């Protein structure tokens, strides 16, 4: 990583010193990513990539423009500032433009680990090698991806605001496939601190699922009791949170509008059953996140408590319009779990399906927040409280609203990756009734 706090401060000040406009925000992200990808049990594409990105937005009253660049020499900086100031002067006034924030207090970030930062390509390869060799020994093909992200994010503005956040993460996932019998299994892990990284059990889980999912039988689609592993849960939750905004509701074009009567406010209403509790906490020890949202400080925030909606994201302009406080978007999600083991959750199911993960989730109907997607890489029938046999995958059509309403029980939280986004999440597996598995897929 190139930029320390003082270097970030110095670079952002160099940019701000060139600005003549009334207001300016400078965002600098600087990263060094180690990317190790493999397929068919051999490393394929890979890279060690360092990059810097500067976003400068300037305003003259309510006229504004922004520019992005990735070079830091004086000539390029001057040219960029000149261009964006010209653009801003020519832009029409935006009545919703908000001036730069005043300096404020932020929580201490908890998103950096020296050990993660120091990981070299050779050490990364050494982490992956035993997992690949285990796959070879088990007679399965494996494909996987390890990414060590080492970055800093800086926000500085013309009012003297300055906030610097270093962060590290390691994301790892792998898919193991058994050619004979078309079995496929997947597992993942996501950590901030390298000390918490242990790839071998992750690999073992994927291999076990691949071997267990061979010769899958077809099961009839329909509304079904399911046990969703945490990777599936986090995808559905993240799709819900993309749409938990105050403005969309006030304008009449949110799924929330269909859940309340005309004139009612959704906050304070039990809209998500009575077993769902979700909150954000930037300093959560298991899944820490960034401490601000474009300068708005993040704090511990309750979103849904026992199914009752407690908060909605509110941007600065809309908060001003409505005379309420702005509410930054969630930077992480922690969902409360009852702490039951997977065996206990499965043990409660007379007839249902265990789902490892979901894939290709897309909005079908924004009015009901209906999403479609597929199950993948480890889908099993449950009978009389036990895993019975592997089943073919399904396409589902379901709303995360219904999923939360239909929670029967929940397990122990864990931090894993998903298919949709990389927001840190610490979520439990869920036992859910009436999940709409709408058609069978032949995909393994």
């Amino acid at each position: 990583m190139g930029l320390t706090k003082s270097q970030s401060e110095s670079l952002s000040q160099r940019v701000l010193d060139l600005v003549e406009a009334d207001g300016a925000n400078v965002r600098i992200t600087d990263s060094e990513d180690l990317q190790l990808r493999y397929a068919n049990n051999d490393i394929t594409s890979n890279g060690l990539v360092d990059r810097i990105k500067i976003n400068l937005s300037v305003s003259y009253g309510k006229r504004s423009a922004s520019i992005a660049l990735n070079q830091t020499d004086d000539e390029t900086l001057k040219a960029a500032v000149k261009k964006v100031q010209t653009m801003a002067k020519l832009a029409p006034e935006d009545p919703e433009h908000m001036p730069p924030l005043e300096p404020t207090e932020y929580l201490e970030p908890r998103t950096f680990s020296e050990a993660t930062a120091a990981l070299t390509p050779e050490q990364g390869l050494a982490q992956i090698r035993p997992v690949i060799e285990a796959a070879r020994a088990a007679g399965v093909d494996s494909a996987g991806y390890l990414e060590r992200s080492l970055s800093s994010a800086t926000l500085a503005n013309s009012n003297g605001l300055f906030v610097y956040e270093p962060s590290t993460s390691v994301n790892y996932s792998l898919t193991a496939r058994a050619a004979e019998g078309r079995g496929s299994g997947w597992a993942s892990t996501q950590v901030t601190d390298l000390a918490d990284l242990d790839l071998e059990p992750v690999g073992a889980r994927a291999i076990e699922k691949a071997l267990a999912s061979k010769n899958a039988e077809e099961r009839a689609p329909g509304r079904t009791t399911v046990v969703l592993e945490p990777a599936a849960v986090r995808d559905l939750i993240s799709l819900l949170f993309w749409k938990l905004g105050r403005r969309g509701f006030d304008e009449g074009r949110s799924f929330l509008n269909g859940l309340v009567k005309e004139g009612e406010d959704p906050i304070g209403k039990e809209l998500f059953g009575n077993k769902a509790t979700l909150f954000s906490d930037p300093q959560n020890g298991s899944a820490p996140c960034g401490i601000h949202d474009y300068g708005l400080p993040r704090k511990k925030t309750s979103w849904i408590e026992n199914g009752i909606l407690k908060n909605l994201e509110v941007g600065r302009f809309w908060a001003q319009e409505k005379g309420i406080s702005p509410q930054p978007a969630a930077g992480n999600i922690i969902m409360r779990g009852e702490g039951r083991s997977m065996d206990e959750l499965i043990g409660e199911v007379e007839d249902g399906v265990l789902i490892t993960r979901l894939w290709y989730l897309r909005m079908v109907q924004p009015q009901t927040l209906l999403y479609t997607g597929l199950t993948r890489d480890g889908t099993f029938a449950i009978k009389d409280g036990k895993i019975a046999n592997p089943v073919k995958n399904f396409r589902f059509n379901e709303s995360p609203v219904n999923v939360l309403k239909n929670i029967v029980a929940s397990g122990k939280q864990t931090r894993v990756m998903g298919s949709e986004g990389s927001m840190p999440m610490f979520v439990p597996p869920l036992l859910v009734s009436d999940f709409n598995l709408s058609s069978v897929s032949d995909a393994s």
Partner: protein
Amino acid sequence: MHRRDWIKGTSAAGLALISNRWSATAAEAAGLSDRFPGLAEIALNKAQSLGASFADFHVMQTDKESLYVREEMVQGVDAGSSLGCSVRVLVDGAWGFAASEEISGAKVASLVEAAVATAKGQAGWRSQRIEIENLPAHVGKWELPIEVDPFMVSLEEKVERLLGINRSALGAGANYCYSYVSIVRERKWLANTFGSRTEQSRVRIHPSFSITVVDQKKGEFASRASMLPPRGAGFEHLRDWDAVAEAALAVEQAKEKMVAPSVTAGKMDLVIAPSNLWLTVHETVGHPTELDRSLGYEANYAGTSFCTPDKLDSLQYGSDIVNIFADRTADNGLATIGWDDDGVATAGKEFPIIKDGIFRNFQMAVGQAELIGREGGSNGCSYADAFDSFPIQRMPNISLQPGKDDSVTAEDLIAGVEDGIYIDGNGSWSIDQQRYNFQFTGQVFHRIKNGKLDGMYRDVAYQGNSVDFWNACDGLGGKDTYELGGAFNCGKGQPGQVAPVSHGAVPGRFRQINILNTAEESGKKVASLDPTKVNRSCHCSGGGNTSWA
């Protein structure tokens, strides 16, 4: 502030400045190879001295501008530029790669060392060596022809066009409307150890809008997005678009859609406009026939493919009227380029993926043809989306060819349907991890009754299996119905990359396709409406590139 006051405040000097390229320095105006002399030689010589059997050096600059307007508020005036270099090496049968925005002799040398170290770190435990074919050397420059450089068009004109769209929509009764335009110039310089030295430049543009109508009493809303696709083109693509007329029509259609009868789920015949069918081509033919996906390289992300090498020349992928061809040379194609990112020339490399319904070819990058015993090597399908991306196999332009009868129109196809749906515009899309089971929606669903359009449906999705779907095709429009669709942002790979790609299509008729009612899928009880009381404003697109004339 009134719009006229803003225009009065605009000076000619200001407009000239805003029209300038990203930087006014002389160095910037020169080509990438001239701006960074000697670096290719440093990279390639060092790589070979450290044991590379192949190496390439890329410099890439991407300039962007975008404009976002919501109702009558200009909310996003953005520009940006990204410049950097990368080194890729093949050492002892293993790849290594490193990239940086710093472009200097010392940095390039260190990138080579890092890339070689990653390659050598795999020594002794790879199960198979990576081998690539010898490639001919190409030396030259290429530029996508366009009429009007969008970076030279004033901000004022861009703003006025988007405000015009929004005003048309609001005037027609939309509650909300946003419009935007995004333009990209991509410049690449490639040098490799086969002796290639190529420099290329291309531009693409994507204008779009979306309108929403709201019924606050019922807690309902409906949206309709524009149907103009992005293109490898200049500003003429936006100027030639009658967006004002389409915006007004979009509002009319959204209002009708909001009160249209909810479709009854079950099997129906479909006629699908090119504005929707291009994406079905992309998902059900484009992605399954990527060879790297078929061989397992994408298994940990988007999955694999039902289309395996043993199915070449034998799989009945579609009915015998279905022909789908690939190229990187089509006019205005988003994947059109002179040489791919392995340095393979694309001219003359056009190939059929499906011919007369039979699966004939995969899309391939360097080192892949040999893996399935195909002669001829790469067919030019390598692409890296940024200076810091490893080149991987990506889609060329992939297009559904017109039917044999040039006179067939969408109306002719509709005339052959007793009870069905005519689907126009893209909506939601999803397909499984081996490309079998798909589900798509659209923007507008016209009911077909006894060979004619008769009102609309709402809550429609069509779902099927890729091969069954294409084998259900029994009618295709003629050449005058051909339209070039596409996307800026096809996603693939880990880390993720996005690639622009075009897909030509004609209207197609498909028999007995599974239709879902999306409201029922969400668990809602669906109220039935009297279909005789809905408005009838049916517009049949599918005639060339001027759907809204």
